[in-house]
């Protein structure tokens, strides 16, 4: 490098600051918790489907009772079929809602990163390597936890007879998927 090059390059570099890695300022994993989002979503979807499942299962049972088939194996199969239909709908809705929230979080995170990139020193958005309150929630905690990507204060499972049956069905049929949304 010629002497005159070096002086000018150095004067430019003197004013050039390396931008700190945004993922160290705020990682996406700390900004968006999939577990908490899924717990909130499960809360919403169960709240939506619980009364429908109750009505549907009761309808199936009454139909079989009306035909004098209260102890029939066919009734059990019909109930399982109803649970499978609702599990399908519930899990699809869970995934759709999760995708929506994750997309929203990724867009928001990107916006924060852009904001940071424009003026790293005056960035006022969320920071930190850990965010308190982000842990795997269990359905029993749904009524008390809140998250910007989840619901809050729903009525929980109380009062609906067949919601647990739907959970058990999911746990048995799709254990991995169940674990993702229920945590255990």
């Amino acid at each position, binding site marked *: 490098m010629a002497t005159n090059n070096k002086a000018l390059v150095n004067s430019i570099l003197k004013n050039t600051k390396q931008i700190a890695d945004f993922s160290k300022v705020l990682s996406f994993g700390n900004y968006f918790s999939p577990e908490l989002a899924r717990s909130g979503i499960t809360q919403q979807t169960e709240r939506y489907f619980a009364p429908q499942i109750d009505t549907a299962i009761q309808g199936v049972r009454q139909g079989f009772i009306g035909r004098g088939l209260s102890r029939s194996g066919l009734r059990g199969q019909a109930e399982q079929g109803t649970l499978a239909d609702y599990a399908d709908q519930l899990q699809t809705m869970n995934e*759709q809602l999760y995708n929506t929230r994750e997309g929203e979080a990724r867009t928001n995170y990107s916006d924060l990163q852009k904001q940071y990139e424009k003026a790293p020193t005056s960035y006022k958005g969320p920071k930190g390597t850990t965010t308190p309150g982000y842990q795997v929630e269990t359905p029993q905690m749904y009524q008390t936890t809140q998250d910007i990507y989840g619901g809050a204060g729903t009525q929980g499972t109380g009062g609906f007879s067949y919601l647990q049956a739907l959970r058990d069905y999911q746990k048995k049929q799709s254990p991995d998927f169940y674990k993702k949304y229920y945590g255990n």
Partner: protein
Amino acid sequence: MASSDYLKQYQKAFQKSQSYDVNKFSSDLEKAYNEKTNYNKDLIDQQNTLQAEAQALPGQLRNEYYQSAIRNPLAQESLIASRQGNVRGQVGSITDLLNARGQQFQDILGKAASAYQTDAQKAQTGAENLWRLYQDAQAQENARRTGGGIGGGLKDSDGDGIPDILDQYPNDPKNKSKTKTVTSTGSSQTSFVDPKWFEAGQGGAVGNFFDKYLTNTVGKSMVESGLPQSGIRFSPIKNISSGVNFYSNLLKNIFKK
């Protein structure tokens, strides 16, 4: 300053002007800038991670959905596409940031290269000016060596900036003493002790002047035939004093310039 000094200065300035290389400067700056900014490693790492995630997602989700209660394959694919779209959206955002950083560097490079170019031009102009100064100094030295201190090689023995031939003009205070008044045809005229040619007859004085000192010059031609193309004619010279006065002033002006 002597011409040799100018030459030394010129050589130094020329070397400096030749050391400017805009292309090299740009590549040096880019290299140094990238080193300082760690080659945007943070964004590139983030982008790579996201791209890997986007590529791995479909297989991973198909496997999950196969074991899930979601039975409709179209619904499964729709969910996969939407999830992958989320990740790809973030990859796009990182690409935008990388482009913005690149643009920022291009702006810096553009300004720096422009400043560098200006420096290079200044150095080049400086070297050219020194070359001219060197040539002027050399020309003056040559002129001195060949015996003329005044342009055109005319002698200026007393160093007053006026050629010797004009020093002899009676208005030159130094030569007042060299004049004498002569009487001819009943009227008084100022004449000269030296040179003798000023004492020639009225018509011949100016001609002698040019013949002797300015052979083949424009001045001589003007005296002999005027300026035919311009139509300018010199008025007849009434006597030696007025003739010499006119041409002497003319020559003084020429030499002064």
